[in-house]
């Protein structure tokens, strides 16, 4: 297993800065950076209207599912996907080999604007994440048995 990604408060602030700037420019509602396994790395925007964890899992699946489709037309993968709804839409683009960025937006903006600003945002996010990977090492969060406040971990009610 690789080193565990560890997001410090400073890392999250840097990511939030990039994502917040993107949301303002693109006039989108929410953006989420996830790994390709469906884990949420960072999120910014209005998170009260949807379960970001589930969106991340489904988006990772959606992105991977179209990879074979891309191969059939001679591509390695589609580096961006767009799901159009009646009022709300999702745009997903590749950040790097391990990471995807999801943007949820509504009627206030257009897919063109989201697509335009997401390209440069993805590059900035990739640079930040690369710095994290280079840091490497352990996660620095140490605990022992007495720190776990509930056993069993999950209770059958």
């Amino acid at each position: 297993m690789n080193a565990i990604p560890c997001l410090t408060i400073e890392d999250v602030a840097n990511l939030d800065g990039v994502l917040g700037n993107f949301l303002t420019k693109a006039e989108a509602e929410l953006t989420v950076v996830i790994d390709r396994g469906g884990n949420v790395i960072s999120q910014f925007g209005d998170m009260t209207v949807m379960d970001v964890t589930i969106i991340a899992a489904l988006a990772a699946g959606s992105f991977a599912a179209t990879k074979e489709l891309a191969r059939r037309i001679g591509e390695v993968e589609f580096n961006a996907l767009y799901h159009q709804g009646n009022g709300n839409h999702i745009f997903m683009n590749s950040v790097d080999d391990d990471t995807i960025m999801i943007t949820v937006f509504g009627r206030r903006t257009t897919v063109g604007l989201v697509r335009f600003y997401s390209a440069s945002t993805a590059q900035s996010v990739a640079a930040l994440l690369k710095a994290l990977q280079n840091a490497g090492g352990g996660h620095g969060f140490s605990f022992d048995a007495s720190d776990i406040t509930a056993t069993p971990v999950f209770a059958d009610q």
Partner: protein
Amino acid sequence: MSIINYASREIQFKIVYYGPALCGKTTNLGYIHQRINPENRGDLVSLATAADRTLFFDFLPLNAVVIKGFVTKFQLYTVPGQVIYNATRQLVLRSVDGMIFVADSQWEKMEENVESFKNLEDNLAKQNISIDEIPYVLQYNKRDLENIAPVNYLEYVLNNRKRRVQSFEVISSTGQNVFASLNAVSQILLHKFSKQSDVPKTAPAPVAIPVEPPIAQKSAAV
């Protein structure tokens, strides 16, 4: 691959239920979803065919224990068991932290169990993960049926490696040992995670994370 976020004070883990078709993986998640405190879980997402066969995956997010102010979040996935969906299984295994292998105890399913376990090893190897390193437990499911293999036979077939893992006699339809097996793999995961810190400890060396009362069957050192 677990992720620790110091800003939102969260640690994320991914647990995958793996096993042959119709062995009871989705039933496990359904029972957990039904019985766990609703405040600690999200929606159960199931991408299934009209005949209720898992097409893509099932997904259930859970919030668990708080450790030093950090909420541990576990994301439970199932894979589609049918042989043709191997590409989907590879996708779901991506970034996996721990696993529960669900075996069907019926004699006629033994070959499928072995094939599925081999498929799991192969798919993990494609991600450079060894089955001998990743935390997992075994479930011997459907123990309420008549035509089932004895536990020692299942142990011989599926748990006969250098590292023997905990195994559980399970009836996923009634929930027997469903939580016990989830708790076991979660505790192994947390224990492994606690060892991956490189910060020197000032406190005495940690002891093993406490294990719940011995509902486990055929428990062995992990």
